[in-house]
């Protein structure tokens, strides 16, 4: 069985992406889903948004190319369940995301990849954003244990939230849960057996 790593904290320089309800079609347009591996998806992250913003998109800023933390708004990652979206972001270099809120399937996909998404209040996201936009070298750290988000060498930290189930999975190294789910196949079979539809409703 593969044991995954414990994710206690993530840090790096950051990238601020403005806008609410940014859907996964925008993160990875559907034409790039015509593939049988996730390799190379990082080249197409936000491709259409970037073309339309004429080089002014946050992901086109050369000063941010090494960023590891992404700052987003409300309902980030809504829409399609495509894991290609967080896979593309991860391969681009994003290892942690801070935002006002996240769509559920996107959030779950990020957990499966070991990428923590931390929720901050809208006001805190705005202040953090401003600091990040001012200084491309400022280092942002996410503490998975406490949910705290800090920037630079400041002692002040923003109090964020990571839902308990996800937090435990990061800290316990169980964010890739397949091994854990497979621990007791007999128990799975017995739950299946107890469901009348698996026996075609015959007694």
């Amino acid at each position, binding site marked *: 069985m*593969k044991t995954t790593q414990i994710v206690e904290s993530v840090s790096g320089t950051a990238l601020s992406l403005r*806008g*609410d*309800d940014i*859907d996964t*079609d*925008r993160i990875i*347009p*559907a034409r790039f*889903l*015509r*593939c*049988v*591996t996730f390799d190379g998806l990082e080249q197409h992250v936000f491709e*259409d948004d970037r*073309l*339309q913003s004429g080089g002014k998109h946050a992901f086109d800023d050369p000063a941010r190319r090494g960023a590891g933390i992404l700052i987003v708004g*409300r*309902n980030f990652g*809504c*829409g*399609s*369940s*495509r*894991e290609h979206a*967080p896979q593309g972001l991860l391969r681009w270099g994003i290892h942690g995301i801070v935002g006002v*809120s*996240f*769509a*559920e*399937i996107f959030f*779950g*996909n990020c957990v*499966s990849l070991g990428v923590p998404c931390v929720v901050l209040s809208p006001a805190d996201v705005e202040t953090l954003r401003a600091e990040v936009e001012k200084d491309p070298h400022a280092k942002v750290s996410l503490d998975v244990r406490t949910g705290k988000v800090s920037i630079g060498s400041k002692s002040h930290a923003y109090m964020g939230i990571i*839902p*308990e*189930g996800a937090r*435990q*999975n990061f800290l*316990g190294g*169980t964010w*890739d*849960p*397949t091994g*854990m*789910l*497979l621990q*007791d*196949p007999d*128990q*799975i079979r017995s*739950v*299946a057996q107890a*469901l*009348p*539809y*698996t026996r*075609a*409703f*015959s007694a």
Partner: protein
Amino acid sequence: MGKNLLQKVWDAHTVRQLPGGQIQLFIGLHLIHEVTSPQAFEDLRRRGWKVLMPERTFATVDHIVPTDDQLRPFRDSLAEEMMSAIEVNCRAMGIPLFDLSDARQGIVHVVGPELGLTQPGMTIACGDSHTSTHGAMGAIAFGIGTSQVRDVLASQCLAMSPLKVRRIRVKNRLTPGTYAKDVILAIIRRLGVQGGVGYAYEYAGEAVEAMSIEERMSVCNMSIEGGARAGYVNPDSTTFEYLKGRPFAPSGAAWDSAVAWWKSMASDADARFDDEVELDGARIKPTVTWGINPGQSVEIDERIPSPSESGADRASIEEALQFMDFRPGAPVSGTKIDVAFIGSCTNGRLSDLREAARVVRGRRVAQGVKALVVPGSKQVRRAAEAEGLHEVFRGAGFEWREAGCSMCLAMNPDKLVGRQVCASSSNRNFKGRQGSPTGRTLLMSPAMVAAAALAGEVTDVRKML
């Protein structure tokens, strides 16, 4: 205090509590398609795992399927590679595949219910966000990512956090010319595109109870557009009548015990809900989206909003108006269209095609409008042809295509071009969704799409019925 359907299904499918506090949930039916499965199979192989219960997974092909020329190899070599991958994977793992040569092929969320694979009280998962569709039959159905597809293949289980349940009661009947699509667009407009995060939606009330299963599917399908991962309607006599005689539905002596169990899984009369919302079905009118998410909609006699109208959403409205190139305060009725698309997992079923054909019969598609009808499955296509619907559409100037996801999502040759405006019966009006990065989508019911195709502009279908 009684339980709701979600709690009952959850309890019956719980394998154990996981160390992190999540629940290991048994998945009764796993549906896969060509887009979100190849990486999952690859991961399984890499780790040396097998499919635990291959008899509980069914595969179909839909997203990349061309709806005109289906000759293999496909002209798109990437699509051909994906098609080969699912064929090889299903063969190797013993999973039944409804491929293009199979009379059962179609969009995964059309195929599951019509074959009777989808049943009340089940847990269902599929690597597709519109899996919520299956809740129309009283199942709890989740859209999942590829890593979770791998989890289900390997263990027939998912690690899940508990969901809250919001009951949405739509009281009173709908009025003629108003459809299930208008109901779900009204719900999303009211509760917002993120309002359902953390919730499953239970749809209830007279309007929902009066709906056919296909109409309930249109409602449940778009739960995810309101942020809710799952949506369901309690199983009732409409559900049982729909299921009876379908290939994978129980029959003979098993039928009665199945119905008894299905009834027992419905929400109790005194069930508790985490939230309750009520809408008046009689007041809902044909609804059209004007923006870049499914919550940005107006009724047909309303005007497109201006940014100054609502403080909090100002930036979103501005962004949407700019992308759509719409004038704030302009009536939505009269918006010119270039393309009309009837199809998708939201509205590509026989009853959708019938309603659209009722509008189209004896009329002509407006000059300059490209109009296409794409049945949701081969079975839908055959049934529609048996009724002569294809002749109605063709006679009016619509293209009559093969089954697939088509223009809903731009993974196949059916795409918008440039700044085209499309009246669409699909589920998402996101920027670039229909294949042109600058293309524009107006979501509406299939009957409204038909009306728009004939008029060449958005128009009130009620005047044409």
